């Protein structure tokens, strides 16, 4: 990105001054090297989002922002309930895609001698990759219960423990989901995909806590150096994709009908208070519940698989975050509490200490913010901050972001080599697709640590612990 287009407000804050139809400024949180590396499209997309009706404060981009669909991936924008809009491009295709992290009560020393057995057991237990099916078949009544109930439904069905729920955003159940707003085609895509990992950048990873940066927060999170945790990255599967696809089509007409002047067809949106807006919100919230239920069922399968190899394990949920959502939250806007529709697309909610929405044990330190890395590098656990609540509607980065296309990655690496190279470094990879492994090679991604450091320096979240991979199950 051309730095001359931006006004540097602080070391980590870059402003796009309002011009033309922009209603608010653009605001990028990133280090200078990260801003330089960003595509010019990110500038255009942040600028375009700033023109949408009812946007509050600023159109924002997180340090890992890259060219996305309509909104940049890493985009955050909050809209007024009465004057604002809701946009499918502001949520993304994989609705409520997210990360959950489980503590295991195991150390690296416990896992190391059983690593291969553990990798094989997890690969057998977790349906992964294109064409995989889950073990659960849902009747249409049961589907409705899942769409309304989310992870709470899954726990009631026996896939999980009561204690899991308070460690999930929304207590595991997104309110105001409307199964009646969900099409038959979306239902058809989910009928046998509950409890599947998916493909692409989705994974399940056994990780070791390699570094602790904030002892008090790490203690509250139950993390210590040498501990083993398990992270699961996936979303609402075909269900969310179908709802996203249908919304892109329907919102094209809705925007026109409501007289919304769009700089780009990809920004198609509908007023929050409109039939189309409410329809999308009802379906999107159902998809959030699908993602929460899916990660909950995968947690159950993980517990069974890990228990079969390491019976002394005890898997408890640290936290579950979603990084593709639109949620109604109260934030301070122009000095007053204000209800807003916060779109986070490839951005993680990062509530600061004291937030009433956090469980008791976590409230003093802030929300765990789970940042996925790549197979060969690292992932991070951060904690939300008060400064982030003021600066970014309580939002932070979500991952590394690709540094090169799948095309380039495929030319540069071959799956077998990637697996062998990682194995020589003690990381076991299990995947149904070697081509998929090549496309997701660690070198195809940006350095997640650079993104995390920028996030911390910008005050959006603070580092708690660094995780390094031990076993990766790749979809």
């Amino acid at each position, binding site marked *: 990105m051309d730095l001359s287009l931006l006004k540097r407000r602080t070391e980590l804050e870059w402003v796009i001054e309002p011009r033309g139809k922009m209603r608010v400024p653009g605001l990028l949180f990133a280090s200078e090297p990260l801003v330089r590396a960003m595509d010019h499209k990110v500038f255009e997309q942040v600028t375009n989002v700033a023109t949408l009706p009812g946007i509050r404060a600023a159109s924002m981009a997180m340090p890992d922002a890259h060219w996305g669909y309509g909104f940049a991936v890493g985009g955050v924008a909050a809209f007024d309930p009465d004057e604002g809009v809701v946009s499918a491009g502001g949520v993304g295709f994989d609705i409520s895609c997210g990360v959950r992290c489980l503590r295991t009560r195991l150390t690296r020393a416990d896992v190391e001698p059983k690593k291969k057995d553990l990798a094989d057991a997890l690969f057998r237990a977790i349906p992964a*990759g*294109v064409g995989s*099916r889950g073990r659960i078949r849902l009747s249409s009544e049961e589907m409705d219960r899942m769409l309304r109930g989310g992870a709470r439904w899954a726990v009631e069905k026996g896939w999980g423990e009561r204690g899991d729920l308070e460690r999930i955003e929304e207590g595991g159940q997104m309110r105001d989901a409307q199964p009646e707003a969900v099409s038959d085609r979306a239902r058809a895509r989910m009928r046998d995909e509950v409890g599947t990992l998916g493909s*692409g950048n989705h994974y399940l990873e056994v990780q070791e806590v390699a570094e602790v940066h904030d002892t008090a927060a790490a203690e509250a999170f139950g993390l210590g150096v040498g501990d083993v945790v398990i992270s699961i990255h996936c979303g609402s599967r075909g269900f969310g994709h179908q709802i996203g696809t249908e919304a892109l089509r329907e919102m094209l007409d809705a925007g026109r009908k409501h007289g919304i002047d769009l700089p780009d067809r990809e920004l198609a949106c509908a007023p929050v208070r409109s039939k189309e807006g409410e329809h999308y919100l009802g379906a999107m919230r159902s998809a959030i519940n699908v993602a929460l239920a899916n990660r909950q069922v995968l947690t159950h399968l993980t517990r069974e698989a890990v228990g079969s190899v390491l019976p002394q394990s005890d898997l408890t949920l640290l936290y579950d975050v979603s990084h593709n959502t639109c949620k109604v939250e109260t934030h301070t806007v122009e000095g007053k509490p204000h209800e807003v529709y916060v779109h986070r697309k490839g951005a993680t909610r990062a509530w600061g200490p004291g937030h009433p929405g956090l469980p008791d044990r976590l409230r003093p330190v802030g929300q765990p913010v789970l940042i996925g890395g790549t197979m060969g590098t690292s992932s991070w656990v951060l904690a939300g901050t008060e400064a982030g609540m003021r600066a970014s509607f309580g939002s932070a980065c979500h991952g590394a972001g690709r540094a090169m296309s*799948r095309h380039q990655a495929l030319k540069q690496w071959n799956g077998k080599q990637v697996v062998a190279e990682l194995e020589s470094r003690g990381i076991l990879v299990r995947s149904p697709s070697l081509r*998929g492994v090549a496309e997701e090679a660690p070198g195809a991604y940006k350095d997640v640590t650079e993104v995390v450091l920028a996030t911390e320096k910008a005050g959006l979240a603070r580092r708690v612990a660094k995780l390094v991979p031990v076993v990766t199950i790749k979809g």
Partner: protein
Amino acid sequence: MPSPPAFETFAHDADIGVRGRGSTLGEAFANAGRALTAVVTDPASVREVLSVEIACEAADPELLLFDWLNGLVFEMATRRVLFARYEVKVEGARLRARAFGEPVEVARHHPAVEVKGATWTGMRVAREGGVWIAECVVDV
């Protein structure tokens, strides 16, 4: 100069684009479908053991391409199949097609990634020098 390929994928940041060419709109759409398969696997590795009928309708050719590709994504996902070849007829706003393929076989197809859906990014249906081109970016 060699003629451009009938179908191809192209790089687009984190996602990927599909492009089909043909002497008719239907042929270009059929080839865009082959490019969609190429996102997942090598289309030459897919046998023709089953067929699926697909129909959609949209007055705007770009909307029609959007619906056609998303129709294929839906069939691939719900039937767990991959398609090798397509016969597509476009008459006015109506598209009727038959897609030929087989169930996904992981050991043979090494499917790399699921396609989530077609998007409006890079969406273009045009006739250039007597050749129809149909292309857009798909979300993966």
